[in-house]
């Protein structure tokens, strides 16, 4: 094995294509690599997508030293064949304590993998010493996780090759590149295609081409949809379109321009969802990233319907605003909202219930988000002293309309969840944190609806209360996964979310405190 490695290394290292940044990139920059089907985390996907995801996880950026994600991944993998690495990758470290532990300076953002390798024993000891799973332990674990992923790449294990097609299962058996790309294979290819021995890159590229053609013939080309989806960035352009739409409402006298851009943005979002449905073969609402985008989409739809019904521009503006907020989160908060598509936990694998229960709940959150945006618009108006009694009355009715839609959808969604639980676990209700919190949300809004008929809640109090009530939605939606993180619904757990949620709470409560104090609401 070692001999094979060395010989292959020699085969490659004799030639070197220096790119414009004077790094040898061998065959790694060839475009065919990007579309190669590989298997990672239980799914078949194009190499470009896998490379971008793992690079981003390990180094915080998918491209390094101006080389694209696939090239970087390829060069790192070639280390397994004994080819020295000219790149200088730095594993991401962002926690101060971990930096100190690794002997890093405060302003350094990454560390050479070899340093971690040297200190691995110490780091493991440090982990073993800490009995409580505190944030320091978690952060250290995260860095070690990144290092492990790096190891998987640099030992050639992360890059998988379709080996044998198993016809009865209609799927491939996969094997790591390091055990498939042998010297005899390269020599065989050289002879087969009569490649001039000076062209050292060619047999490798032939190898990849053969593999791709073979896979496409036997298992189909479905995986390439993900390649196009990945390069297309529908939700990025949808954000731009939504922003233009919102601006044009204020700039242009007629609403025609705004309508065109709103429709274009919605269309692009639909394209994004449809592509994700094709790739994952399930409803596009199975993780935080998807539910956030879907709520933004749903909110805009609900807002447009209400706008048509009530002829109130506020709905349109509020719907677009929330749509923009969710798309911004989806595009810029990827540490919290992971856009990659992975397999589902077994309990959730039921497309019928997934698409009915989750869609209803997320749509209800969308409608409640609309009421939340409208409430905050009213509060901002009161700050600017443009909220007179009539305007307040008008906005209150709009908020109430959105809230009603939300409450009806949420009660339907909660019940559908109960029916699903009964159908697949044999119990209608089990006090699981996610279901309990969705019930709390319902109770909070129902309390407001009941209170509205008493003299406890007048419009003056109604508006800030609706803004406050949305915190319960955020708790049920984000808080259960990011803070409570226990129970059967823990499919969206990741870090960073807790900080976001806390900032959200602090910001909203501060706005409400200032508002209460300024407008002299008696509590």
């Amino acid at each position, binding site marked *: 094995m070692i001999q094979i490695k060395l010989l292959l290394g020699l085969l490659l290292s004799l030639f070197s294509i220096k790119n414009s940044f004077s790094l040898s990139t061998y065959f790694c920059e060839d475009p065919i690599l990007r579309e190669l089907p590989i298997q990672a985390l239980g799914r078949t996907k194009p190499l470009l997508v896998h490379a971008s995801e793992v690079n981003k996880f390990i180094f915080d950026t998918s491209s390094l030293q101006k080389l694209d994600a696939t090239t970087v991944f390829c060069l790192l993998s070639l280390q397994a064949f004994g080819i020295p690495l000219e790149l200088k990758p730095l594993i991401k470290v962002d926690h101060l304590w971990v930096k100190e532990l690794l002997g890093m300076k405060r302003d350094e953002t990454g560390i050479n993998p070899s340093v971690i390798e040297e200190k691995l024993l110490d780091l493991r000891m440090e982990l073993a010493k800490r009995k409580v799973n505190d944030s320091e332990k978690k952060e250290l674990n995260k860095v070690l996780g990144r290092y492990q992923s790096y190891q998987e790449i640099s030992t050639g294990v992360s890059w998988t090759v379709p080996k044998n097609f198993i016809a009865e299962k209609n799927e491939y058996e996969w094997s790591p590149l390091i055990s498939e790309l042998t010297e005899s294979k390269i020599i065989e290819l050289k002879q087969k295609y009569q490649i001039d021995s000076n062209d050292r890159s060619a047999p490798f590229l032939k190898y990849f081409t053969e593999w791709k053609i073979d896979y496409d013939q036997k298992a189909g080309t479905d995986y390439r949809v993900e390649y196009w989806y990945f390069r297309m960035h529908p939700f990025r352009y949808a954000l731009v379109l939504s922003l233009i739409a919102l601006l044009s409402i204020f700039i242009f006298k007629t609403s025609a321009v705004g309508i065109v851009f709103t429709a274009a943005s919605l269309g692009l979002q639909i394209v994004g969802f449809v592509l994700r449905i094709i790739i994952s073969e399930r409803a596009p609402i199975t993780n935080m990233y998807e539910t956030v985008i879907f709520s933004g989409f749903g909110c805009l739809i609900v807002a447009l319907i209400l706008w048509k019904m009530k002829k109130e521009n506020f709905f349109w503006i509020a719907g677009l605003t929330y749509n923009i907020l969710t798309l911004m989160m989806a595009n810029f908060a990827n540490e919290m909202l992971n856009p990659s598509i992975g397999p589902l936990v077994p309990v959730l694998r039921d497309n019928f219930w997934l698409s009915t229960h989750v869609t209803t709940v997320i749509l209800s959150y969308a409608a409640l988000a609309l009421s939340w945006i409208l409430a905050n618009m009213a509060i901002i108006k009161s700050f600017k002293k443009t909220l007179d009694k009539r305007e307040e009355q008008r906005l209150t009715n709009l908020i109430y309309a959105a809230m009603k839609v939300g409450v009806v959808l949420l009660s339907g969604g909660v*019940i559908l969840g109960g029916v699903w639980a009964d159908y697949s*676990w044999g119990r209608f209700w089990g006090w699981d944190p996610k279901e309990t919190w969705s019930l709390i949300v319902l109770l909070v809004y129902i309390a407001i609806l009941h209170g509205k008929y008493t003299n406890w809640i007048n419009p003056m109090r109604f508006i800030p209360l609706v803004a406050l009530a949305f915190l319960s939605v955020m708790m049920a939606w984000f808080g259960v996964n990011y803070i409570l993180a226990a129970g059967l619904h823990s499919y969206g757990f990741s870090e960073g979310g807790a900080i976001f949620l806390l900032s959200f709470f602090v910001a909203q409560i501060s706005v409400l405190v200032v508002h209460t104090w300024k407008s002299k609401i008696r509590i």
Partner: protein
Amino acid sequence: MQTFITASFKRMGRTLWKTLGHLKFAVLIILLFALCLAVGTILESNQGTDYANRFVYKSFPFMALQALIFLSILVATLQRLPWRKSLAGFYVLHLGLLTIISGSAVTYFFGVDGSMTLYPKVPTQKVDLGNEQLKIFPQSSVRSTMSSSITQGSLDLPYVVNPTLIDLDWSQIKVLDFYPFSDYAKEWKKSDSSSPIPSAEYQLQNSRFSETLTLSQHRDSDFQSSSTIGPLSVHFLPGQLFPCFTKSSSLGLLVWNLQTGECIALDTKNTSEISGNEGKKLMTIRSLALPMAFSPSESPLPWVQSKKENKIFWTTTEELPWRLFNKKLFESSPQLLLFGEGISYYNKNNSQWETQQLKTNSSWAELPWMGFKVKLNKLVFDQYPVNVPRPVKPVQENGALISGALRAIKLEYFDLEAGSRKEIWATNQSAVKFAHNGILWEATIAKEQKVLPFELRLSKFKMDNDPGTNNPASYESFVALREEENPGKHHVYMNHPLKHQQYTFYQASFFQTEDGYGSVLSVNYDPGRFWKYLGSLLLVLGSFWHFVLRKRIVWKA
């Protein structure tokens, strides 16, 4: 007078009626309910599901609150009768809620919610239900000699969060404290034995690591006389052996007497070689005038001559109190030998056995491995360490309890041999045995079981992973159902339960055994299901009617 009382009752009734149906009352109890739920989810996250259930979801006050909500909805609906068309949605919605709550109550009181553990190829009829019981039963056959008053059986444990005194007499076994959540804690117990038996506590540490080692040679102790910490092995040996370790021995062998503690370090001078069975080399000790020899490479036991069919040959014996200690066996890896106040180890750096003296709670002894040092905290001869349940607040981390998973109950029985009453803990982890009034008893905390009129047998369990990973993609049980009528084979997997008679079986979990995978099915019988579904339908229709279809009266400030 009577009219006055009736009048005041009427007045009270009217006030109650008015309050229960009042909107403000509704708002208050809705918010109180939401608050309880929020507390419940936080407790569930930090202390685990069981704690949250005992503290909130299945506690009496919470049940009472739900009953109050039911009453409030009922009264509010009745107050809005007779029928008004404008309130049609309201009636349907609230009737739906009442139906759901009633259905849930039916499920709670008359339903079955349990689990069935299926070992591979072992038929079973038993379903574990939710509530736990203390099960005590006499084990031995001597039962007939005792009066028939002995009843084996089970005692329902109270559904509480805090330690509770049960105080119940059961065939003269006293059932005392019950700890719903506890951990084992170390306690020093007085030794019954007349001879001194050593037990000790050491502190072992280096710059990154610190651990307390509790070691005992007492038979009844829950602590062993050896322990391992990573690559380091620690052995707690009798103190009489220590003097031998201070002497040098060219052969690296010691011989010592279990009874007197006398020990001899062996070298070429005080030993001689003789031949044993088939010319095997054995070693005798000159200073000991005993017909005894040793084989250092084979056994710590002495060899003696015996006669069989007129042939003399050598065998090992446990009857003589002498044992051989081969130091060579402790040289290849880091081994720390502790003798109470003395320690010994093999130092690889200078290829020497070294010894050090320790005084209780005084100095640290440096060890030749990774900067480790050791200290003696405690050395006793009339006590020994045991593990005793201590009540704790449970702690959950990453979805699993890291503390408080032990449920324990204290029993007091009569030990005929000792002639006194003794305490013992029955737990949910393993059954304890004790001799009460001369009879062997067994006690354990376990789930209440229900026996089904048919049996299930797991013929196969299948688990599929996501391709190329260890993440499970599906769990599937293939079960054979056996009963008089309609036996059959069934396939139970996620979202595909098995329905038989009134019961439904769902794939819940799995475990590994020596014979392959076992499976856990949850078993469910829900007589309230119809009402919950009907109520849900009414609720959805009603709220749609009330909030969406109804011509809304514009709300004025």
